[in-house]
């Protein structure tokens, strides 16, 4: 019948109750992954590295999705970060993996900043199209830039870490370790962000912008900030990807690349940060095995998979284990 007031604080308390353990679990997972990386084969190290680097970009898209907009142009920041890292390596002699990655993120933020407030005024298809067009403008510039290799792009050598260049057999692990650590920390930071006051109001903006404005917050500012956070993650992901691949090309900014990042975000949903990396790994596994066994049908598989997710799991795979969402779905069925 009537519940006592203590039940509401227990609702809040129970949400808080697994917040700090989740953070500890996250940190523990990063350490565990670093240790596991010492024993897994090189091809798997590479696959997870790429999955994590790409996952970072998709994590940025999820941040934006969670405030109500979908970016179809994250290839732009992916390419900005990647080219920044590759150019810093080749032209400025900066070889430290951490510096390159963080620098890539920073460059992406700085170059996206002029557009943040403008794009934050758009919604729906127009937000998607503007982000898409900006990424294609960058593509158009890159593909004709002979100084940066034009449509072929250019290569990048192996990075160093804290001044040490890894021996051949350790270079994959070095890339893996840097990527796992950075993307892991970003994931934890995003988790904290989602639980913060700003994160909650962003989520509210996705639901009802009018009310958010009447309660005194600026939705434009919220989305612009989220756009810049996504830019940082996208740029860092691009730098990490370039380091792992040893090669950068204009395709990083092409719309099909952006489409793949969106694919992972939709697959993951915005209810769980871990889901993003699981989804990204699934994509990498499908992509890797496909080129060996079914090169002409893997896009078909992805397409069907995406349709199935949109139809049957519209909140993404993260909704499978988030309690809050389960209750919502039950409420809707009732």
């Amino acid at each position, binding site marked *: 019948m009537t519940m006592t007031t203590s039940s509401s604080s227990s609702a809040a308390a129970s949400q808080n109750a697994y917040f700090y353990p989740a953070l500890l679990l996250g940190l523990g997972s990063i350490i565990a992954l670093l240790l596991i990386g010492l024993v897994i084969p090189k091809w798997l190290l590479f696959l997870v590295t790429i999955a994590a680097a790409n996952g970072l970009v998709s994590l940025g898209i999820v941040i934006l999705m969670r405030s109500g907009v979908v970016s179809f142009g994250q290839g732009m920041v992916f390419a900005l970060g990647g080219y920044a890292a590759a150019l810093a390596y080749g032209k400025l002699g900066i070889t430290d993996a951490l510096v390159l990655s963080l620098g890539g993120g920073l460059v992406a933020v700085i170059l996206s900043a002029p557009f943040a407030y403008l794009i934050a005024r758009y919604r729906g298809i127009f937000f998607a199209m503007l982000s898409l067009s900006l990424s294609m403008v960058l593509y158009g510039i890159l593909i004709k830039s002979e100084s940066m290799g034009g449509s072929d792009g250019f290569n990048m050598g192996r990075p160093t870490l804290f001044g040490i260049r890894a021996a051949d057999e350790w270079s994959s692990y070095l890339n893996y370790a840097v990527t796992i650590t950075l993307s892991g920390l970003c994931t934890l930071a995003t988790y904290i962000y989602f639980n*913060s006051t700003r994160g*909650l109001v962003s989520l509210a903006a996705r639901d009802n912008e009018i009310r958010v404005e009447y309660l005194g917050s600026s939705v434009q500012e919220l989305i612009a900030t989220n756009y810049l956070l996504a830019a940082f993650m996208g740029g860092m992901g691009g730098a990490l990807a370039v380091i792992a691949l040893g090669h950068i090309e204009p395709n990083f900014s092409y719309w099909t690349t952006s489409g793949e990042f969106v694919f992972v975000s939709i697959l993951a949903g915005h209810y769980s940060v871990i889901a993003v990396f699981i989804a990204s790994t699934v994509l990498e596994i499908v992509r890797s095995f496909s080129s060996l066994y079914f090169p002409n049908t893997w896009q078909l598989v992805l397409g069907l998979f995406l349709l199935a997710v949109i139809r049957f799991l519209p909140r993404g795979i993260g909704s499978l284990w988030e309690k809050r969402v389960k209750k919502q779905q039950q409420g809707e069925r009732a």
Partner: protein
Amino acid sequence: MTPSSSTNIAISARGIQKKFGAVVAAADINIDIPHGQKLSLIGSNGAGKTTFVNMITGYIKPDAGSILLHDEDITGLAPRVVSRKGIARSFQIPQLYKELSVLDNMLVAVASQQPPLSFWRPARNAVAVQRAEELLQRFDLSEHSARLVGELPGGVRKLLDIAMALTRYPKVLLLDEPTSGVSADEKFPMMETVMRALSQEAVTVLFVEHDMDIVERFADRVIAFYSGRIIADDKPDVALSTPDVQRYVTGTLR
């Protein structure tokens, strides 16, 4: 002998004019609302009362005239800015966050109240939750705290809508048809709850209403609109028996 710049006047509207094409929504409106008053705005649809409310909250800009909040000019400021200055409103159709729980709805209101928004401080921190729960309790909503908004009956949603508006410690609270959509036997208890909840704060209340029983019971003062003009401005029993009001608003002229 009331000084014109008395800070006892919560809202002062001077010479407000607004036209939508050929339709006159406000023709030289002048109103002074003293602090703490419970004022009801009545009038048939299109008479101009909602437009007046929208001009106060900044949703619409008046063509001419000015609006002062405790002597501060707020004419034409955006809703977000007006909200920060101390005017809160509830909506005729409750504007809630459908995918969040009742408690989370309140927490959004609490979080918005104290800028700047933090990137790391948990939204469900003890202070915020306490304030949210205190308000929920005042409006008899505590039992619904963990429920999702989509599951709530209409009357509960309206109360939540008002509770969220009150989170900001507003100086002026605008209620847009608070009892519309609420069943007849729930209207009075609902307004009782609202007024009781408000009694703990010194808040000026404007409520737009169509139900004259509610108006008579809960308003200190009634202003009636017709075609953008004020046709009555008095205590409820006096205003409601004015022939013009009976002709154009309540339809009870004999």
